[in-house]
């Protein structure tokens, strides 16, 4: 049995963070029904990247909304809203990511809905919480990265700030929502009552940076500074980073410099054996490592380092990752089918249960495809 078999989830959210949380619940066995606007539905349906469309909808929509159903309803229309309220009365979880106040104005705010169904777990995603001067700002991934210092942690010192090049906060925030919703479901088994779970991109951004941010809060007030060469973590000393070789790149994690000197046969590292200076002189040390590694192939260096159990890896891109046995063994991919039978390749839920993986072949739902079956 999947752990959430029988759990009913209403997903009023669109784009990524909220729908991604609902996707994880669907992966774990829940029945997820998207409630969408009659015209166009989830805006993600029309968000096309790389010209990739599957039937009516973008590939992106299918990626995020596989294994869900869809009903359409105009929440501002009384009849439609009443029908949705009947669904809510019988649901275990609902999720939305409207800006603060919108659901209240529509008449489906937490307090109203709780009166309708006291067992409901009500999950919300916002950009910056529900109060305070930023509550009404657009809760968009790149903008929240910018506001939280994150772009100063990637890339090298001297470069412009480098944001993570995709929606890491949406995904992390969706993950946090899943944790809260599951915990509230567990509590409900004891107390019989549902609850309100709120997450926001801002808090998730801080949580992602919590190790270094805690050091900052307790330190001398200086922000971690990126290393000028091969930065991969602003607070870690040499050689931690990425290095070019003749035919590609390799990563080296925490490694004593003296070991590196010996294994790489790199006498220029001799002045830097003292572990105390691995951080304070990281740019000098990394410059030596960089010059040295440039002369040979990735495999040449891996053959020297891996047998000694040094923490290193080849830097792969997606095509080369797909060719590895390691990735194949994870069984990380699955095929899903759209309503018209088109096959799509995507990834699966990253959680394995009782030795098995969680897969489902259902693609994203056509807009309102389940309205009649669900609402009658």
């Amino acid at each position: 049995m999947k752990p959430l078999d029988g759990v009913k989830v209403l997903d009023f959210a669109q784009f990524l963070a909220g729908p991604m949380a609902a996707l994880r619940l669907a992966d774990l066995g829940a029945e997820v029904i998207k409630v969408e606007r009659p015209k166009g539905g989830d805006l993600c349906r029309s968000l096309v990247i790389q010209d990739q469309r599957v039937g009516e909808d973008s590939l992106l929509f299918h990626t995020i909304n596989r294994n869900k159903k869809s009903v359409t309803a105009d929440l501002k229309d009384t009849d439609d809203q009443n029908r949705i309220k009947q669904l809510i009365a019988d649901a275990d979880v609902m999720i939305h990511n409207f800006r603060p106040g919108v659901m209240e104005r529509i008449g489906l705010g937490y307090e109203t809905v709780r009166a309708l169904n006291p067992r409901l777990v009500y999950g919300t995603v916002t950009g910056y919480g529900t109060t305070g001067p930023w509550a009404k700002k657009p809760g968009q991934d790149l903008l929240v990265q910018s506001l939280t210092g994150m772009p100063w942690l990637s890339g090298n010192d001297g470069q412009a700030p480098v944001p993570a090049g995709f929606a890491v906060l949406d995904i992390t925030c969706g993950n946090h929502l899943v944790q809260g919703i599951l915990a509230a479901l567990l509590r409900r088994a004891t107390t019989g009552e549902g609850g309100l779970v709120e997450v926001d991109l801002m808090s998730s951004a801080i949580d992602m940076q919590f190790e270094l941010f805690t050091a900052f809060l307790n330190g001398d007030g200086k922000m971690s500074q990126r290393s000028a060469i091969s930065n991969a973590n602003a607070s870690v000393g040499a050689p931690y980073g990425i290095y070019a070789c003749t035919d590609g790149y390799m990563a080296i994690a925490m490694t004593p410099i003296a070991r590196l000197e010996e294994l790489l046969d790199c006498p220029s590292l001799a002045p830097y054996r003292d572990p105390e200076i691995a951080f304070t002189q990281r740019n000098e040390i990394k410059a030596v490592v960089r010059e040295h590694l440039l002369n040979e192939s990735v495999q040449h260096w891996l053959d020297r380092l891996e047998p000694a159990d040094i923490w290193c890896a080849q830097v792969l891109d997606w095509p080369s990752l797909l060719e590895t046995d390691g990735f194949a063994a994870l069984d990380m991919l699955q095929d899903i089918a759209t309503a018209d039978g088109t096959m799509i390749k995507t990834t699966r839920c990253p959680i394995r249960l009782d030795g098995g993986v969680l897969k489902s072949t259902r693609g994203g739902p056509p807009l309102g495809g389940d309205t009649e079956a669900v609402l009658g």
Partner: protein
Amino acid sequence: MSVVAPLKGLKVLDFSQFLAGPYATLRLADLGADVIKIERTGKGDLSRHLYVSNVVIDGESTVFHAINRGKRSMAVDLKDASDRNCVWALIEEADVIVQNFRPGVIDRLGFGFEAVKARKPNIIYGSISGYGDGHDWDKLPGQDLLAQARSGVMWLTGAQDHGPVPIGIPVADVLAGAALAQGLIALLVRRGLTGEGGHVETSLLEAITDLQFELFSTFLNDGNKVPSRPKHNAAHAYLAAPYGVYEVRDGYVTVAMNDLRTLFEVLGIEAELKTLDAFADRDEISALIGASLRARTRDESVAFMDAAGIWCAPVMDWHDLLGSGILQELDMIGATTRGDSEIGTVRSPLRIDGTRPSAIGPAPYLETTNLTWKSRS
């Protein structure tokens, strides 16, 4: 704060160290669980002495404090018979066990899933590895940077001529921990219905593949075409202009997805948009935007673009962020004490019933006395 504790009464035994496993149990602790760390006698969790800055709090690294606040600790030698008995006594009453040794190690120590299940059938058991189990990669060190290197994620950040750019925070660790926490709580929900236990597993590579799932799926259905990052102003490999980072007189601003026509009007850029494609010509377009913003200050740029409804933000650092007061407004910053030290902390990223559930209390000293579940003060 203590009114919100959905996992109150839950007993978690945590054999893991460093980040991924302990991050999962931190989330459980924040949600109300009682977490006991089982650590090696002597040094304990290696992150106690993993210094990421010269900040030492009460003799241990800030990293350790950040990850392990609100937990308890028991130091044991897992190869010593009497210590093993103490651990088994804790397991008899535990709900959840978490471990992140390399595959096979915990089984050899005698505390693997099968061994525990034989004595306690309804145990919820969580394992995190680097790359899963049962193939060539399972002996590789499960370390964040190395998992990032293998996952392809380094080709998504930064600009074309940057080479591979790692995300400068341990995203694989954090998200593997998040996935494990979800799996553990989902199994607890199932146990409430069926009474059965179970084993949840994830790995750094699975978590970081999931992190890329949108764009990776695009690649899988696009004839395996790899993404091409912008030449400059980079913030996303797959999004069209103006999405990017722009240098201004005294810093940087970011501009998210916006209607180009409106943006050009607001910035007074006189280029013929008809001849420009927002994706194919993104470098040319971002150069125009960059040139137009360069002379202004950060605050000016944001203020006048904001006023015109353009989605933009200043690139702030942690000083600016703390100064803005937003984290205080969100109640994201906490404080605790250990020994003579005041410790500033970051709190749980989620709120339940309007309050932020957070493990109260500091990270534990390495404790050599035998703990019981009842002894939590």
